[in-house]
């Protein structure tokens, strides 16, 4: 079943809940190799996104994604604000005009999101950033779609790959973001942004699962 505007609204609400539940976890991850604010930043941003959407009646999935992008860009700050903001904005553009999203649209959206993050943040694979969750997700989602997988299959592939990518960041030495200031000391810790990315894609997969 293709993704409706309501589905994307549900995802935003679901992810906001997930971020609130994981606020302290993300803060602790960031405290270890950053400045202890990632959970607070994402929570502030997603609550703002919900509040903004409450006053709107988006017509398409793209409208929802664009609204969330604006909230993240104006309310989050830090590195995560512009990066996630750009991700949602590029995703919105990638599926502009569409009433519903087919599996290939979902892949296009995730790909555009990842490309936007890389364009802004200039991170390479294994720099120990959220990109290390996004890129495997993009590849896995694409593969699932070309195997004829539906939205659920595509998102589950993405979520699984993102979680694997998230865990893969643990041993790495960070080369981007605050964690890079720690040099060798950044090894042995999971990247907070890769974690919030995996949580986002898992929330999407769970929703798709619910519907199926």
């Amino acid at each position, binding site marked *: 079943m293709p993704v409706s505007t309501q589905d994307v609204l549900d995802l935003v609400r679901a992810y906001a809940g997930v971020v609130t539940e994981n606020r302290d976890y993300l*803060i602790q991850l960031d*405290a270890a*190799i*950053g*400045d*202890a*604010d990632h959970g*607070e*930043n994402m929570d*502030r941003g997603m609550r703002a996104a919900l509040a903004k959407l409450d006053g709107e009646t988006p017509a398409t999935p793209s409208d929802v994604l664009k609204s969330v992008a604006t909230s993240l*860009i*104006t*309310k*989050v*700050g*830090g*590195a*995560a*604000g*512009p*990066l996630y903001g750009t991700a949602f904005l590029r995703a919105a553009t990638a599926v502009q005009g569409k009433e519903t999203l087919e599996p290939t649209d979902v892949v296009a959206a995730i790909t555009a999101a990842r490309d936007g993050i890389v364009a*802004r*943040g200039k991170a*390479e694979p294994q720099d120990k950033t959220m990109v290390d969750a996004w890129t495997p997700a993009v590849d896995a989602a694409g593969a699932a779609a070309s195997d004829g997988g539906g939205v659920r299959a595509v998102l589950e592939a993405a979520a699984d790959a993102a979680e694997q990518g998230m865990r893969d960041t643990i041993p790495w030495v960070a*080369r*981007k*973001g*605050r964690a*890079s*200031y*720690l*040099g060798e*000391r950044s090894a042995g810790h999971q990247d907070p942004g890769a974690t919030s990315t995996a949580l986002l894609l898992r929330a999407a997969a769970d929703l798709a699962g619910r519907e199926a």
Partner: protein
Amino acid sequence: MKKIINDPARVVEEALAGMAAAHPDLIDVHFDPNYITRKGGAVQGKVGVLSGGGSGHEPMHGGLVGRGMLDAACPGAVFTSPTPDQMLDATKAVDGGAGVLHIVKNYTGDVLNFETAAELAQAEGIQVEAVVIDDDVAVKDSLYTAGRRGVGATVLAEKIVGAAAERGDDLAAVAEMCRKVNANARSMGMALTSCTVPHAGKPTFDLAEDEMEIGIGIHGEPGRERMKLEPADAVVDRLLTPVVEDLPFSSGDDTLLFVNGMGGTPLIELYIAYGHAEKVLAERGINVVRRLVGNYITSLEMQGISVTLLKLEGDMVDLWDAPVHTPALRWGV
């Protein structure tokens, strides 16, 4: 968590309200989006000088707004860079027609948000130049990383550049002076204790009673190395040697020596550190001709110090000496 606060979620807004009450003659505080402007707003024909960053570094940046220094400051959430909408409104508020300089500390978040703000401002026809400060020698500089952090040099740059703007230099000249100060300044810091981010509620890291962190930044992040406590002189040597050797500073250089406290360090300790730092520089034949000692760029209540050394060239000394009238720095007026 022990702090004189009411609600972690309202720390920044309440502190801003307090600043507005405490300095009605110097600054105007704007809310939602949050920014501070020099009393009287834009000075026609003068380059506007704007900076911003996460809160928790007070008096930087809001306490450095006023005649001869910043025209505006954008405070983000604690340790979180502010957002483009704050920067855009502040940029518009202080543009006197001669353009606005954005002084940006080199952190991914700050750089990205200021980039967006600059685009938006330029789209509205305001000339904007951005200079990124990256003076922290604790972090190895490299094209493949986020690069060095912006720390103590930011305060010195804001003073010197603010004076250049005040005397009427154009945007290109003001930006060039800012790049020059950044190129001539190096810093390094250390911590005796962690700080507690209000929304986190517990210390960012734990240090044993006999340990210190060397090579910290200004966001309560751990440093490059954890080691056993040492006497003040040894600690100062650990900070000053890499600072001196990185530029490098050499015998005969005229410099400004800035010994900074991280927020919870009493002056009596800063003066002990300062005394040794100036002695060491004298031994190297480096002349300290200007000085700054105090808690100016901080990490909440963290105990620790940072040392910044600036090689003074051209008219930097005159610009440093020029009148300044802000909540935290004032002379000549």
